[in-house]
């Protein structure tokens, strides 16, 4: 399974990537939406994208739309840090899967596995 992780919180993203790697999940980390888009445009393929909702520049929701245009088979998991009502509402419209920060790694792994298996 190949995972695309996009979060502007760099240390958090790196740490999470390491934990996923430890569990045998190949993870590419990007700290901004634009860089992630560039990577996908260059032909990199990912099974699942883990996106932070609130990011400077291209936000998680916008990023999902654009990634979906590039690769319609990609699955998405959102991370909501702020937990504000707007966050939830926006995410609820765009994705079935969202997880609040701080994360429970087991739940994330389980979600990723389910998505990768195509539910």
């Amino acid at each position, binding site marked *: 399974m190949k995972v695309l992780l996009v979060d502007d919180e760099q240390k*958090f993203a790196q*740490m999470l990537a390491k934990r996923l790697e*430890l569990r045998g999940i190949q993870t590419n980390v990007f700290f901004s939406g634009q860089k992630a888009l560039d990577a996908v445009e260059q032909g990199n393929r990912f099974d699942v994208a883990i996106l932070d909702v609130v990011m400077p520049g291209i936000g998680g929701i916008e990023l999902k739309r654009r990634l979906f245009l590039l690769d319609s088979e990609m699955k998405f998991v959102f991370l909501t840090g*702020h*937990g504000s*009502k707007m966050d939830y509402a926006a995410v609820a419209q765009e994705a079935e899967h969202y997880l609040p*920060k*701080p*994360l429970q790694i087991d739940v994330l792994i389980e979600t990723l596995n389910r998505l990768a298996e195509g539910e």
Partner: protein
Amino acid sequence: MTESPNKFPGAMWPRFHRNSDEHLNPYHTFRDYRQTWGMAIFVLMTAAFLPLIIMTLIDYQLIETSINTEALLRTERLTSNARRAVTFFLEERLAALKFTVNEMGYDQLTNPGVLSEVLRNLKLGFGGLTDLSVIADDGNQVTYAGPFNLEGKDYSNQSWFMECQRHNACVSEVFSGYRNVPHIVVAVKSMRADGRLFVLRATLETERLIQALSSYQTGEHADIFLITRDGLLQTPSRFYEGKSNKVDIPLPAYSGRTKAKISTDRNGQPILIGYAFIDTEMAPTSFILMVVKQKAGMMKVWLDLRSDIFWFFVVSAVILAIVITLTSTVMVNKIFQADRQKAQTMVMAEQNCQLASIGQLAAGVAHEINNPLALINETAGYVKDLFTIKHQYKEDPELVEHIDSIIEAVGRCGTITRQLLGFARQLDIQIQPTDLREIVGDVVNFHKKEAEYRNIAIHIEIPETIPLIETDRGKLQQIILNLVNNAFQAIENGCSLDVWAEMDGPERVRLFIRDDGCGISEDHLNKVFEPFFTTKKEGQGTGLGLSITYGLVQKLHGDIIVKSKTGQGTTFVVTLPVKINKDNQT
């Protein structure tokens, strides 16, 4: 709560007079309701009384003037009529003498037989004559016919004779003369064939004149009499007959016409005086006809009217005063109460605002905490991963334990931030299926630390059979939070708090929150849901918590009751519908 209202006036007294809700005052429209009340009464009274007083005074004045005018007119008419009678009485007799003189001449009249015949005829024709005499120009009486023996008397010094010399005729005052009987002399002057003058004199009985006058006397308060221009009484008077014959009322100035005026008598009583100077065509007289009416007596109608007006005024004034006072009191009280409600709403709104601010603060705190928490979580997780997945430090259980405690702490932080966020969202959340157990758990979690610290045991017992209830989650959370807060404030350290629920029929759920704290005394028990009721010291409690709770329960179509015994604790029972009928939602 400060002043005890007096028993009777207290019941009548408007509420704003015992207003003690100081904290509401900043929100009141008017500062001082007592002053407003006073002003309202003053302005209304002025507006009502001023026209009433002015109208009454004008009415008073008008009626008095018209009654006075009417009385003066009547007096004047009476005087005028009496004057005509007196004048006619004198003129008739003067004319008769004139006729006799012209018809018969000096020679015939000096014949005593003829004179007696003339006297007899005059008595028959006019009456009121006593005797007749012919007097020569030197004042000596030439012939006399009549009952008294007055032949040869000399009248040259008598005032009437001298008066007669100056005019063609004369009328004397009432006097007794030689015969010692009051009488009036009327005389006419004529010329003999030899060119010398002579006078035909007749004496008139005053009785006839008095009779003529008294026929004009109307009512017991009226007096009619003749006086001379010196004020000597000539005919009997009801009011002014005294030791001297002089009347003691101010003598009027001469006037050719009948007049009437208002004056005062010797006692200072108001009187109406009608007067006329009596002049005949042939000769002036010294008589003044006086009509005197006592105003007090004849003004009874006016006095009655005046008292009617006075009582009308007093009764109107009393009714107006009562109506104005009552109306003002009721109106100002209504305004006061409306204003008070507004103020209470404002305070409530302020309270809600504070809650909203707390919510925003909570959201802000959660926001700031969440990212670092997420990082701690991942870092700790990674360290643990190193232990467990890579098996490098598998043999070191102590390290694993420490890291687990980090993760556990982070988990707890996460729970708290989630609860804070939930609290922030509750203010505008709609009706949704709500798990009572979860909410009670959330709320009690807020107090976990305090409970541990204070050694308070919390027992929650909400059976699985309680279904999800459709209600406003946020409001329910606030209700439970308020009640639990309340219980925590009421109990001592080491006491316990029980929260349990049961079904009340298939449609309703009952939630019990019981503490074994100090309890609520019986006289406070029915006041606990009133806004601003508090037993805490000033500044330590708003007294709003339970009243807000009550309002929230009402909003959720439920009800809340309280059972308590002093020293044995308090139980609040909230009954909620399992499903709110949205059509009836307020």
